[in-house]
């Protein structure tokens, strides 16, 4: 069974997410790139699960949990972004520097 390529894909997704976090200005996009990371994690879990032929399917269970939590977090995140947007008419995270020192 092919393991490495999948892991590589996961790693790539992970790095992609990191990249996105660092360069995207729009809060939503940043959020999405974090989702990418989470998905990388998911892929990892599934892959390992199948690779190890885990009878308990722990990896998959874990994945399900992650997906739920990710959903919840996206909800929260969007709520916060919305609130911000309502107050400042922008979702550009780089303009949020009211509090410097």
């Amino acid at each position, binding site marked *: 069974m092919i393991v490495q390529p999948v892991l590589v894909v996961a790693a790539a997704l*992970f790095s992609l997410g990191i990249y996105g976090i660092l360069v995207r200005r729009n809060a939503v996009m940043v959020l999405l790139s*974090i989702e990418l*990371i989470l998905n990388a994690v998911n892929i990892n879990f599934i892959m390992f699960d199948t690779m190890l032929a885990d009878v308990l399917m722990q*990896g998959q269970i*874990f994945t399900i949990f992650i997906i739920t939590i990710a959903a919840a*977090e996206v909800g929260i*995140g969007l709520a*916060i972004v919305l*609130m911000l947007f309502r107050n400042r008419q922008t979702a550009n995270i780089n303009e949020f520097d009211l509090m410097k*020192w």
Partner: protein
Amino acid sequence: MILPRKSKYYVAAFALLGTLFSLAPLVIQWANYSSPIYAFENSFVVDKFSIILKGLFILITYLTFLLSINFIESDKYYQGEYYYLLLSSLLGALIVSSSRDLLTIFIGIELASTPMFLLSGWKKGDRKSNEGAIKFFLLGVLSASLILYGFSLLYGLSGKLVFSDISSYLLSASLANSPVVLLSAILVISGIGFKISVVPFHSWAPDTYEGAPLPVTAYLSVSSKATGFVALIILLTKVFAGSGSSWGIILVIISGLTMTIGNLVALQQNNPVRLLAYSSISQAGFILAPIAISGITGDYQDGIFASVTYLIIYAFMNLGAFLSVHLFSNYSGSSNFYEWGGVARKSPLAGVLTTVFFFSLAGIPPLGGWFAKFVVFRSLLGSANSIGIILGVVGAINAVIALVYYARISKVIWMDELKSSNEEKIFQFENPLKVVGIFTVLITFVSGIFPGIFSYLGEVSSIFFGN
């Protein structure tokens, strides 16, 4: 939540009672405790460590509620949700403290932190609050995802989720120091490092603290930090016990940096909340130090003992400090504590409380802080290890530096002249807050004069945990 808005204050009363009652089972458990009880395939355990920390979490939450009452009623905030969210965060903390597998602990952490994202942005109209929330949220999620990545690697390596299995597997396969394990350890440390806000994962803390409503900030700086530490302790000693020598060094460096940078930056602050934020960063450095050293020496028991004792004492005095900041900033309406000249004379009680808390944080006997610092130094020097001693010296110097900014506040409120704008204002010190103040100040004194009690808690937790 179903109650009509006007009768929302029932919620408060209800929440308070609920939290208080939830202490009861703990007491019972403690009373007839024989040996650790495992549940759900060893993924959940009830031992003294968990009992003690659950007690701590519940107490903190209780005090936070007391702090919140007036704040919530002072403005148009959703009460029900507020308490609900705090309580669920508490639930997360409770889960963490007795979780024994990756999934449970992850759920616990998420449950503990996710509500805080919302609470930190609770002051909807306030931009600062929003900003704090978004920063907190983004970093929080990132950290969570890093932790997850680390977990996934662990799982992939061992195919287990329960700590005991993982660690035994790692030991048997002698993978304890393999790059993958170390990498996952790093990811976990960084992820949790965010929650306990140690350098360099601390940057969110000041902003979020400043933005969030004060009770939430207090909760953040005490309870979530404690949760983070608990999670860290569990993971490091249960999973990565074998590779202590490696992460030990890292944590030593981190804690040294954290103490120093936190202190030095705190010297610069004029906003009390930010000051407390940085102070709690440097305190985190102190709490981290014993664990770090225990990683190097392998004497986890001692490390846990010191850290837990510190945590318990720190929790209360820090809450108290936030309380006094809350009081004075409400009173003077200024978030620059240099404006607080002589306010202590308006309310000596508040003044005394403030003094006690801040000097306790500075670690001056007979206030609790000294013993917290003391146990840390004790375990550092006890390591009889040059790194430990160096870290101890760094800590000692930091303790002195810290004094400067802690003393500054009480200097301002006692020694400076009362501002004319504050002359006629009357000082509000609501009863719930009084309760919090008295309670925390009592604990602070007791923990300083009879530290035996607290060190005992720390000790038993360490004994029953470090097996």
